[in-house]
């Protein structure tokens, strides 16, 4: 499956548009409870554990989006966008959405 965050794919032609597909994950974001992060708060720098958590969330959200696109019979997702929102219970949601489409290589 071809995934891009632009509206077109170079060298491919859109045959059919299949609508919006999306995937999201919600993760608890309380940094204050994480001991390693607590120590990092003294000297600053990257929170590697937290970055990995984000990567996992993002992969999961995108996987859900791809599954939806496959179900609709698409072979590409265009104009993928990400959105994050804070949920009041102290969690953050990562939301990925895009337009599923059937594309075929352009005749040269």
């Amino acid at each position: 499956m071809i995934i891009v965050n632009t509206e077109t794919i170079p060298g491919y032609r859109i045959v059919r548009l299949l609508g919006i597909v999306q995937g999201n994950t919600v993760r608890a974001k309380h940094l204050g409870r994480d001991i390693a992060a607590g120590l990092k708060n003294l000297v600053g720098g990257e929170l590697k554990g937290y970055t990995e958590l984000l990567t996992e969330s993002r992969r999961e959200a995108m996987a859900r989006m791809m599954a939806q696109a496959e179900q609709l019979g698409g072979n590409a997702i265009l104009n993928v966008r990400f959105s994050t929102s804070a949920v009041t219970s102290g969690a953050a949601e990562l939301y990925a959405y895009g337009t599923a489409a059937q594309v075929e290589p352009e005749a040269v």
Partner: protein
Amino acid sequence: MIFQLSLILPNALSLIFAKGERGDLYISLGLFVFLILLGLIVGGMIERRHLADIRVRSEALRSMLVTDLKSFPLADAAQTSSALFVGEVAITGDYLKNFLAVLRNIFGGNIRSFESLLTRARDEARLRVMEQAARQGYNAICNLRYETADVAGRSEGGKNKLIAVAVIASATAYHAKA
């Protein structure tokens, strides 16, 4: 949690070394100054090392075309593969930066230390996108987008607000004419 510790620790210390009211104050003050210095010195070192690392990696990828245009500028018509790459990073400020957040609420205005923190996060996320693309053989990325999230939970009863940001950068990689 560490901020809860910085509240409990002075009390614990003063129970052991109690020299009356004055003793409490000196210990709290001493701990505070120590943490500020820790943030200033060690935090500053870590930040400088990160910035140097970012500079080195940017140099290595100097030849990659990076734009936020949607039109695949200079695309090579012969090579039509393209793919989305996403890079993310979560960075936190040191004790000094977190303390400056409290001052910000009093004095307001521009805080240059936060600006550098966010710039670092964005540069790091963008470099991760570029490196992933380069590893797959692409030499150009377009439609670079950033998404920022505040990932610091409020520490219960903590007097300092944590500063931690997560930045997600995404872009579409393609082959550009050499």
